């Protein structure tokens, strides 16, 4: 199986190089790349279902003294699944997009696959850097030069900082060289283990978008072309989470200290709240989706934190439930976020803009895309029949059963984490409703939006396919958890086979809470069908008229779409939230400009808010860098005589030091 994946890897890089050489074959090459991803998906799914044993492979070439080893087991298999789904869909959607950096997309996928298949520290680092560099170049090759440059620079700064921190973590934890098998034998202990934990969380956490290092994500992900944003949010953040799971769960040994899960719990719950709140205030579709990624990553982090704590307390049942929740959410979010970003790309392409207050009423012009978007948003907002609800349900169940873990601090922390997570969930639902409502429903807010028409058939089929996949996993969560069972077996010893059947998933084999996904969906469908039949049996009259609007007069004839400005826009929908939640978190202020009497310009209603992370974390770092650069500049500006004086001083100092050393 590893050889198949190696062939896929080579093919991807080959396609990248081929496309760079022959740009005119772009469309064909990207289709083949998509097919290769699909083949990879099938291969990995087979591997997971048949639960084939783990394999390792030492590549013949590779850097001197370190060597490149690849390893495939259940855990990397599951994440490969998500990466292949997201990349395959993105590549298929990118077929006819005029992308300057197109040859880099297969390289980006290859980078992610290398990271997942890494069998030793260097390959992991190499994959991590390849995927960062490829996506950075893709950001630069797209969009307005100024915005792309700023986003690209911020993105690459965080990527390099993250990669170097991860390198430091692996070196501090496991020393130099040696593959994962050797590392597993000698996990870090004591102070090194604590340093290892925080460095891994800082390095891979910043890449995944865990607070406090998540400030860059809502700026960088939207700047990339739509298919690449889909892969960055859908797949790359999951690869970063894979690195956290692999290093903290698998390689850090079977019994980590009990408090290891706490940072993940805190960062995850904060991420859920901040990400969801921010999604309500963003005005660009892709920024809303990027912020919602932070929320979902937060939820996954909470689940991972719980699993880690349960593993430390040797409760395999709870650990496997929490980890199952995390993996199901990874799969669900991977599919739905890819779908939503591709929809955002289609909307941007058809309606000419990504800004929410220039869209509206797109459901009339792009019905299929709208329906798929509603399905995707429903899952991201964790509404019952969808996969999002199944994983959130499992996360809350593991949260509710967690207080048995004992330590008093944990008992205090778990309710607060649950509180923040529930708040985040509510905000996510509001954000998704706002996104769908303002983009697809109501009346077009700009004439250009009325010019939109449905995407071409293959893309629509892609959307329907993704929405269907999300629905299938929603109705049959057991299927996804079966795919995850090899990973659960490796990390927690038991999988959810007893508890996750075909119809739904429960917390214990018998008794305990049980979420029957299929029966509930059946009841819903039955009721809807019954009422629908009732409606058809004796059809009543139905006609179209002007919207009642509580008796307001008809809009003047020169407004083709009626008075669109009275509709609730993006800013006004989140105005009550802004007043209460936005002020403390984001320094939210209303910036209204009322024209003076006699002025002809229209009144403007705007909102101004700032990301706390960028103000209180990034800005001080930049100030420190400038201060240091100014100090260093003094040395550059030294005149010749002062330079010589410095050299003589160095000589004298060295002589004195040597003299002192020789005395002792």
């Amino acid at each position, binding site marked *: 199986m590893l050889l198949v994946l190696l062939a896929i890897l080579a093919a991807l890089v080959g396609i990248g190089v081929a496309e760079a050489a022959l740009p005119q074959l772009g469309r064909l090459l990207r289709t083949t790349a998509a097919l290769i991803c699909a083949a990879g998906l099938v291969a990995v799914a087979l591997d997971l279902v048949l639960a084939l044993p783990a394999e390792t492979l030492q590549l013949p070439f590779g850097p001197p003294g370190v060597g490149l080893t690849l390893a495939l087991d259940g855990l990397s298999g599951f994440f490969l699944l998500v990466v292949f789904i997201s990349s395959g869909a993105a590549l298929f959607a990118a077929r006819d997009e005029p992308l300057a950096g197109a040859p880099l997309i297969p390289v980006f996928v290859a980078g992610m696959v290398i990271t997942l298949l890494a069998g030793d520290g260097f390959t992991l680092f190499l994959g991590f850097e390849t995927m960062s560099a490829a996506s950075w170049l893709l950001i630069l090759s797209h969009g307005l030069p100024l915005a792309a440059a700023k986003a690209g620079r911020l993105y690459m700064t965080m990527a390099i900082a993250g990669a170097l921190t991860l390198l430091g973590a692996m070196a501090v934890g496991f020393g*130099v060289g040696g593959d994962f098998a050797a590392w597993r034998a000698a996990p870090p202990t004591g102070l090194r283990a604590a340093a290892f934990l925080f460095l891994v969380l800082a390095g891979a956490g910043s890449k995944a978008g865990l607070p406090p290092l998540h400030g860059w994500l809502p700026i960088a992900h939207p700047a990339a072309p739509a298919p690449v944003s889909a892969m960055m949010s859908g797949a790359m953040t999951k690869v970063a989470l894979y690195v956290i799971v692999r290093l903290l769960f698998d390689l850090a040994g079977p019994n980590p200290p009990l408090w290891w899960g706490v940072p993940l719990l805190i960062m995850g719950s904060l991420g859920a709240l901040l990400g969801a709140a921010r999604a309500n205030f963003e005005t660009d579709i892709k920024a809303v989706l990027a912020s919602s990624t932070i929320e979902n990553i937060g939820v996954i982090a909470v689940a991972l934190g719980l699993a880690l704590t349960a593993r430390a307390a040797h409760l395999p049942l709870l650990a496997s439930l929490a980890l199952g929740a995390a993996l199901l959410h990874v799969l669900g979010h991977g599919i739905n976020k890819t779908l939503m970003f591709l929809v955002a790309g289609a909307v941007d392409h058809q309606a000419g803009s990504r800004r929410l207050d220039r869209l509206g009423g797109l459901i009339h012009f792009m019905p299929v895309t709208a329906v798929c978007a509603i399905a995707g948003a429903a899952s991201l907002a964790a509404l019952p029949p969808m996969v999002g609800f199944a994983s959130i349900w499992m996360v809350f169940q593991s949260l509710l059963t967690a207080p048995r873990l004992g330590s008093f601090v944990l008992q205090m922390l778990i309710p607060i984490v649950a509180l923040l997570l529930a708040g985040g969930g509510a905000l996510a639902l509001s954000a998704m409703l706002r996104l769908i409502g303002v983009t697809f429903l109501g009346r077009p807010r700009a004439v250009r939006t009325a010019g939109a028409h449905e995407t071409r058939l293959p893309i629509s089929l892609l959307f329907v396919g993704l929405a269907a996949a999300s629905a299938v996993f929603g109705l049959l969560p057991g299927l996804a958890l079966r795919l995850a069972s090899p990973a659960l077996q490796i990390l927690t010893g038991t999988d959810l086979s007893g508890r996750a059947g075909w119809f739904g998933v429960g917390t214990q084999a018998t008794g305990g809470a049980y979420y029957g996904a299929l029966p509930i969906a059946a009841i819903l469908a039955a009721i809807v069908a019954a009422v629908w039949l009732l409606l058809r049996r004796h059809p009543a009259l139905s006609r179209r008229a002007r919207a009642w609007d509580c008796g307001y007069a008809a809009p003047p004839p020169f407004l083709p779409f009626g008075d669109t400005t009275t509709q609730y826009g993006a800013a006004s929908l989140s105005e009550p939230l802004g007043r209460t939640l936005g002020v403390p978190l984001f320094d939210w202020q209303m910036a209204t400009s009322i024209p003076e009497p006699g002025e002809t310009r229209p009144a403007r209603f705007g909102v101004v808010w700032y990301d706390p992370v960028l103000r209180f974390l990034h800005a001080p770092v930049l100030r420190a860098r400038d201060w240091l650069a100014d100090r260093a500049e003094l040395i550059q500006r030294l005149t010749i005589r002062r330079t010589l004086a410095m050299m003589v001083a160095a000589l004298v100092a060295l002589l004195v030091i040597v003299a002192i050393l020789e005395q002792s």
Partner: protein
Amino acid sequence: MNLGPMLSLAWFVALVPLLTACVLGFIRHPGTASLVNQAAAVLAFVLALLLPFSTDPGGLWLAPDDLGIHFAILTSFIGVSAALMSGPYIRIELETGRMTPTRARAYHALFQAFLGFLLLGLLADNAGLTWIAIEAATLSCVLVVGLAGTPRAVEASWRFFIVCGVGIALALFGTIVLYLAASAAVGTGFAAMSWRAITAAAPRCNGLVLNLAFVFLLLGYGTKAALAPLHAWMPGAHAEGPTPVSAVLSGSLLNVAICVILRTRHILASNPMAISPNDALIALGLASVLLGGISLWRRADAKRFFAFSTMEQSGLAVFGFGIGATGAALLHLTLHTLAKAALYQCLGHAAQRKGGQSFTEIKGLIASDRTLGLSLAASIIAVAALPPFGMIVSLFLILSFTAAHTPWLAVPLLIGIGAGAVALIHRLQTLCLGPPTPSKFPPVAALTLLPALVLLGLTILLGFAMPPPVAAWFARIATELTP
């Protein structure tokens, strides 16, 4: 003085460029001069390639060790690429009138002189001869830098000369004291001057004298290697003057100086009485990385910017030697020399096309000159140690070694490297992307960029798919260096 001992292979490697330099002094026509220049460089490289295979390549005062041979091959290879670049480069300089035919002639002569003295410095076994070779190489480089004649070039060459003059004086004094220490153990005369003899007799020498020698040799050759407090001359020297010599070749001057420092370190390390030399190397290396990485943020001139990047990366290599990651540091030095040579070639062509070397003048290269822009971007990515180029391997090894053994040292190192890499990324975006600035010459022909692309290809090959004999060669040098 019969010439028998002078006929050895090592002498040929050094003498070919030197003799060509004299010949080039008389060739009027710039076209033939650059052809002769290229031929001589290729010949020197081929001869250098034969060095590892010949049994006793030595000769009078020349008995190169593996380290010397390794860097001789590397320097002569860089010399070939610089020579291939100087052909078209000088032609354009002549067209713009920035260089008169007489100066072009002087340029080619000094090019070969510089290359010859560098090779002599590497292959010399006699400490005095090494000193003379490096001093002569510095002088020829100073003259080349001074050729430009602009006020900034004069200031740079004056600073270059004074700082290097003082450095070389300290180095001479160090050599004299080394001779004093060795003569006590080995006896006076030439025996006490040969690196091999001194290294062999190191344990028997007087520790205190060796310490004194080490201080002066470290500071003297440290100035040549542009380590932190002694680096004042290097940015100006790299930035002014014609690129093929002042930037591409002068990178190798740093390598030669580092070789000598490594030999001194070997001598000191094998003498129990002397202080351990590694702490000094670690301190200077770390200072170079931090100062280099941070002052990258205040540069307005492209060539000076990359000069600081050279200082940072060679500082990291010296740091690597200091903490004991010898193999990785050697690989890092080699890969960085290749990558930086490629980068400077592209930058040289870009600066010529845009008629200036500040960041405001060179913008949007990919838009105006696609092949040049892409190759400059690739070389900046190579220098920033990002995949797919090989420097990521050596960077990973050195940083992991540091983090594993002395974590508290790894923190400032990671910050310095991170700051440097981000500055490179930032400059890549301004140089290669965005709207282009007007360029005075037609786009570069792909052929002229061939040397740069070959260099980049070599970094990938050496990084990821190093052939076994080369790997064995690196391992042998590494074991030879660690006492």
